């Protein structure tokens, strides 16, 4: 089986203008959402207490809310988690109870009416930790981008380097925008997923660049646009194949991996889709816009000694 029986010949670059508009719109929407709505940060970032409990029958959420109000817990978010018998309660930092003990107090309150309540999971994160994590996360992202930029500049050329980092920034911004718009919880695993998206999308971009470089050296005729377009076509089957296999396992994680890695899988699915698109349109378009051309990639000419005496 093959996706393409013969080498595909799409004119990718014809759609370049459309792609620029699409990407710009997505980025503007993402940034706007991020600054107006912000992210639904998980406990890892906000600090506070989370308790996950299991009931024997379907849990009565309004009763739980009342029980929490009775012990003066402020700002609690009570919701079902994966099943109607499992309830997750999230609470911000409390002022009047020792925060480390909040979870024990909550359990006591939930059991006060004699219901069988099993504690499944419980976390407390101090306010300092959350702040640190945001800083560290941002820093990690920045360091990763810079290291990658240096590596690509060394292996390829600075125009490619800027193109790849532009594609990565594009992907990260849009995935963050997705989390902002859909209000899916942004926790530590999503941060890890974002970094994995960087790795994945870069993988894709490098494969395309590698082919562009090869074709610049191999193809005698054709301008930069044609070379890039041919390279995109030649790598298209591979780009799609790898995206499909990766998406297959991510879907398995998304549907069967359980609640804990649900948002992780979600972030990666969005990231892989965006990353595939960006390696075709963003990375090469930026490199082209910067005027990448054959001479940039030619190995520096070394005058060989005794060249003129070569046999005819």
């Amino acid at each position, binding site marked *: 089986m093959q996706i393409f029986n013969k080498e595909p010949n799409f004119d990718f670059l014809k759609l370049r203008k459309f792609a620029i508009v699409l990407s710009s719109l997505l980025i503007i929407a993402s940034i706007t959402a991020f600054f107006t709505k912000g992210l639904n940060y998980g406990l890892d970032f906000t600090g506070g207490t989370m308790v996950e409990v299991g009931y024997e029958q379907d849990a009565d959420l309004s009763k739980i809310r009342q029980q929490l109000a009775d012990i003066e817990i402020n700002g609690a978010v009570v919701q079902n988690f994966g099943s109607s018998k499992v309830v997750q309660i999230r609470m911000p930092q409390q002022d009047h109870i020792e925060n480390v003990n909040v*979870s*024990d107090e909550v359990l006591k309150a939930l059991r006060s009416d004699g219901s069988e309540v099993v504690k499944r999971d419980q976390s407390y994160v*101090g306010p300092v930790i959350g702040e640190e994590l945001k800083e560290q996360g941002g820093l990690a992202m920045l360091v*990763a981008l810079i290291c990658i930029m240096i590596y690509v500049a060394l292996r390829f050329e600075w125009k490619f380097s800027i193109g790849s980092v532009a594609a990565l920034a594009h992907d990260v911004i849009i995935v963050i925008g997705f989390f902002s718009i859909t209000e899916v919880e942004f926790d530590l695993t999503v941060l*890890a997923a974002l970094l*994995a998206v960087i790795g994945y999308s870069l993988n894709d971009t490098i*494969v395309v660049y590698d082919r562009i470089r090869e074709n610049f050296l191999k193809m005698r005729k054709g301008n930069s646009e044609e070379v890039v377009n041919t390279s995109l076509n030649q790598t298209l089957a591979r780009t799609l194949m*790898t995206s499909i296999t990766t998406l*297959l396992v991510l879907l398995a*994680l998304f549907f069967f991996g359980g609640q804990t890695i649900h948002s992780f899988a979600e972030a990666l699915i969005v990231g892989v889709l965006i990353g595939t698109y960006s390696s075709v349109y963003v990375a090469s378009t930026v490199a082209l816009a910067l005027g990448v051309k054959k001479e940039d990639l030619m190995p520096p000419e070394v005058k060989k000694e005794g060249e003129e005496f070569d046999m005819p």
Partner: protein
Amino acid sequence: MIFDQQPQRQLPLNTYPKWKYVMIVLVLAIAFLYAAPNLFGEDPAVQLSGLRDTKISEQQVAEIEAAWQAKGLTPIAVEAQTEQKVVARFAKNEQQLQAQEIANKILNPSQDAQDYVVALNLAPATPDWLADLGGKPMKLGLDLRGGIHFLMQVDMEQAVKKQQEQLRRDFIDTLTSEKPSIRGRVESVENGLHVTFRSQEDAERAYTALFQRYSDRVQLELKETNNRPYVAAIFNQTKLQEIRDNAVSQNRLILSNRVNSLGVAEPLIQRHGADRIVVQLPGVQDSALAKRVLGATATLEFRMVNVEADPVAAQNGRVPPGSKLLDSDRGPLVVFDKVEVSGEHLTDAFPGFHPQTNSPIVSVRLDGEGGARMLETTTKNRGKPMAMILKESVPVFEIKDGKRTLVKSSIVETVISSPNINGQFSTDFFIEGPDFTPANTKDLATQLRSGALIAPTFIVEERTIGATLGAENIEKGIKSVIIGFSLVLIFMLVYYKLFGLVANVALTLNLVLIIAVMSLMGATLTLPGIAGIVLTVGMAVDANVLIFERIREELRDGTKPAQAIDKGYGQALSTIADANITTMIAAIILFAIGTGPVKGFAITLFIGILTSMFTAIVVSRGIINLMYGGKSVEKLSI
């Protein structure tokens, strides 16, 4: 020509030299061997361990085994791992609980003090021959086996404050001992002191005197404000680092002692960054209890030994009023209840050597108030022995049906040293002992410091994962690996036919390699780690896809099959390397900056990339070569 050069033997296209096959087979054999322990699983076990320095004798073990036999509980194996630790493995979970209860009754007969911990554990059921080769299964993280995770913050401000007090006293001592003595006003500032003087001349003399003595610890500067000269003394980086390191390592030690008493089989107590400590208690579910035990305090007391009382008589119950019988390194000792100096006045204790005799000693420093009391005590009691007592609150548990309930907290007092007072001393003095060695003076100093509690700790993060959630996580994790993996295998087979099958073999071997490397490294498997493995599976195919697409391209261009294989592998190589190196950069950064779950993900991703390069390039080529090498092939099944 006589010495004609032998033409280099050229291997035919698509064949590997023999050594390459040998290497592949060897690597894979080792991988299977070290991945194998994960198949055998773990047996329920009971772990007996002595607290503090208590050893477990063979008689005790024999007695427990006999008691088990009497109840029809026969362990699969009983192994003494150290002098203080014995592990007994059982076939069934119910046996484990019963056995724990019985063993606890024998080892801890009294309700007052518990010298042993009887904990439930899981012991790997790896066959002996495999274990002898160093084979062990992967450790499961807290999110998979359930347990409690604490992140404790050490209060560094307090640690620095204590040192500041010490420095203030040292400065005053130095300035008053100058001739003529210098008078100045000492103020505390951040990380140091300011000493203000009346005249420039005083300030300069003070600066010289202080510089001579303390320039190793503090950065000194002569300054002026409102026409008042002052000396600014700020702890230098080395000293601050030392204060922090001491505070953390001391707290780590205290926490380990307390965790041991909790009866956790494999606790993890690790420094985390500059000023934090991670405590992981696998299998523990009662977080309220854990918090109470971790939050308990140890204190140090200096008390006089009651030399008039007879320890032997005291052992028979005749303890004089106002005294108490305690165990010490020299046997039973009767000690007065009155506290001469308490540990809060101790600012530092460190091991060293006597300046004249060069024998090992422990130097002790007290603050001003403690020094004054010590002077009073030593003046009155010269020549008599003084006991240094570490008072710890130790929880006493009752074990029933595998549940551990706190009966009470009992105070355990241990005499850590009881030297004779051979002079008058106040703030700085040292302790000598006939059996002191450099090793035990170090321990003693740490024990003294731990009683002083230089810096308190508090919990900044807590996570409890219930046992049910842990089991659910394992189940779901494995399920998603199997489903994702199968989908990829089917897809590859349909899409690339025979070549797809080869890629699938490579992919499966990759999974075995990842598990083998993780088991060998002693890495911990967490749920994000499983996600990392799943993701690697998806991405590891990429290398083969790149190669196969290249081969197809070559075939389309009319290249002969054999050449197409060779060119496909050759040309894809640099692309694969570039793509993987960049992903590895991301994995390394994740590992360096991330914590807990992120780290777990990064480790598996990193290992997965490395192993996938081996399987996707070297191994898959090996198989293809075996199939197509050296033959004339008309058509490839790709």
